[in-house]
């Protein structure tokens, strides 16, 4: 689906989600049974997702414009073109900034989860409210914040005028230098609550005796956090980081709703740039090549972090 938010990222993340036990154990029944259970899902995914992906790879080797009956095979030319394209290179850098916004969410989310851990009075209210942005999904979050950041007549511009805060009054969403940071900040708003919940789940699985022992040994708050909680939470932090990275790489809806990659190309990420190439410029060859690069990066990342985390544990 198109609008895949942070929880959408869990979808990605779940691909590499932890397993409780080795797959080999207890797997000794009729092999065909498993195949039968898996078949409906696999068939649907193969027909409606994998086959079109193969089609996209094929398109990346052509110069198709999206509608003409003719398309010419151009080999790897599209890949050479995008690698040499300044806008593509800049999009990679901006995508890294955007992923940075997700990382801020991870850190903030973890910090808030640590504070919520003692379940202070009313903590359920906080947790519920923090999850609202995730429930809205990135497209609607984008619409909400577009009203706020709207140049000249948006809520924040007016607030900036009234309170004499030049940064807000000058409509940073409309400035090529500021726009990507505004988007990253909006993403922090959108995703922090999700990581609060993920981190809380992790904290609840922590072995309490470790902390008690540390407390008995006279470790202060900071030391307990630094030497007990954070090391024990490492697998969770790794998972959150991976979810953040994949979601950041795939990011599209929020950015598209708010700026369509503009002003100019100032907020093009890989996803929006591929979309612009395909649909505004009728250039499916290059768009497909960018999509292929995105899938390759995400795959490589998933496999690498998966490996490393297995080694770590």
């Amino acid at each position: 689906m198109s609008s895949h938010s942070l929880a959408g990222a869990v979808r990605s993340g779940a691909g590499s989600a932890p397993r409780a036990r080795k797959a080999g154990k207890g797997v000794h029944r009729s092999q065909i049974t498993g195949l039968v259970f898996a078949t409906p899902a696999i068939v649907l995914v193969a027909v409606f997702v994998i086959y079109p992906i193969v089609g996209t790879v094929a398109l990346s080797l052509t110069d198709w414009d999206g509608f003409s009956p003719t398309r010419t095979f151009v080999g790897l030319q599209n890949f050479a073109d995008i690698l040499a394209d300044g806008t593509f290179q800049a999009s990679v850098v901006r995508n890294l900034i955007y992923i940075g916004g997700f990382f801020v969410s991870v850190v903030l989310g973890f910090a808030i989860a640590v504070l919520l851990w003692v379940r202070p009075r009313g903590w359920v209210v906080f947790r519920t409210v923090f999850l609202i942005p995730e429930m809205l999904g990135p497209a609607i979050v984008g619409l909400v914040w577009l009203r706020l950041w709207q140049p000249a007549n948006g809520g924040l511009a007016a607030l900036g005028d009234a309170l004499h805060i030049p940064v807000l009054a000058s409509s940073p969403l409309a400035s090529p230098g500021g726009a990507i940071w505004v988007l990253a900040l909006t993403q922090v708003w959108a995703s922090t609550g999700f990581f609060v919940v993920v981190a809380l789940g992790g904290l609840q699985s922590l072995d309490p005796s470790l902390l008690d022992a540390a407390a008995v040994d006279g470790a202060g708050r900071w030391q307990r956090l630094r030497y007990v909680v954070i090391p024990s939470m490492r697998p969770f932090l790794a998972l959150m980081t991976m979810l953040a990275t994949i979601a950041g790489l795939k990011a599209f809806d929020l950015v598209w709703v708010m700026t369509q990659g503009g002003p100019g190309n100032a907020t093009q990420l890989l996803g929006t740039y591929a979309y612009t190439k395909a649909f505004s410029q009728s250039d499916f060859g290059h768009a497909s090549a960018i999509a292929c690069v995105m899938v390759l990066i995400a795959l490589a990342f998933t496999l690498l972090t998966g490996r490393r985390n297995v080694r770590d544990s």
Partner: protein
Amino acid sequence: MTAEIRMPLRRRGRPRELSRDTIRFAPTWLSYGLMIVFFLLITLPLLWIAMTALRSPEAYAQNPVGGFEWRFSNFADAWNTANFSSYVPNSLIYTGSVVVLVVAIASAAGYGLARFRFPGRLAMMLSLVVALTVPFSSIMFSVYDVVQFFGLINTRAGIVVVAVAMTLPFATFYMRTFFLGIPDELAEAARIDGAGELTVFFRVMLPLARPGLATLAVFSGVWTWGMYIEPLLLATSDDLRTVSLGLSFFTTEFGGSNAPLICAAIVTIVAPLIVVSVLLQRRFVEGMTNGAIK
């Protein structure tokens, strides 16, 4: 081959209560202070939208942040402009169908992939990982051709089947991790008692995975509610569209600057989501902390 992360196992039953002091990392006032700041950061923008939704465009143009009115006609106007009355039933139908199909298909597949080893299993897992990472917009014309091949363009079935297929990779992995966390001994015991594989699945495993099913239902429901590109692409007529598509009509080439009207439309879509999230937040949270991350 697929990435695996080993997590500390959550113990069965309730974890021993930690002494509250051991896990208190900031003074209470500071915790509350930070919580409240964050609470306001989340709620104030939404409140501002709700407030703006009730104002007249003229008053908004004078001062976007101050002032308050009760102009409920904005909601009626937004409802009509966005054609919500014909789109809401569609969104409900898609959401209902996708939730049921995804939960049914993904739980079967998740179980199959978690508990059995069969030829092609690795290839299937790998395809699912690839399917997870690809953005829909890059493959959508190819998807269109497939849907057309099956004669499903401009049908509800076509839209639902694509939405299901796009949700399945996540849903399958999600349910798989859930089944991995259920001790195998229960299934073995049932088999020894002579239960067939279907009985084991429906009578033993599925009930144990119920929290996961609930969370998956909520997730996929929320996503389908917000679905935008699929119906836009796959329907050639207006009567198959969704509420999210209705929202897009507030951006027009000339005009469409009526901020209160846009806000009213946003509130119309967002309010049910917030209600659902408050009602179902425990499901959502439990499944997320129990299932995917266990």
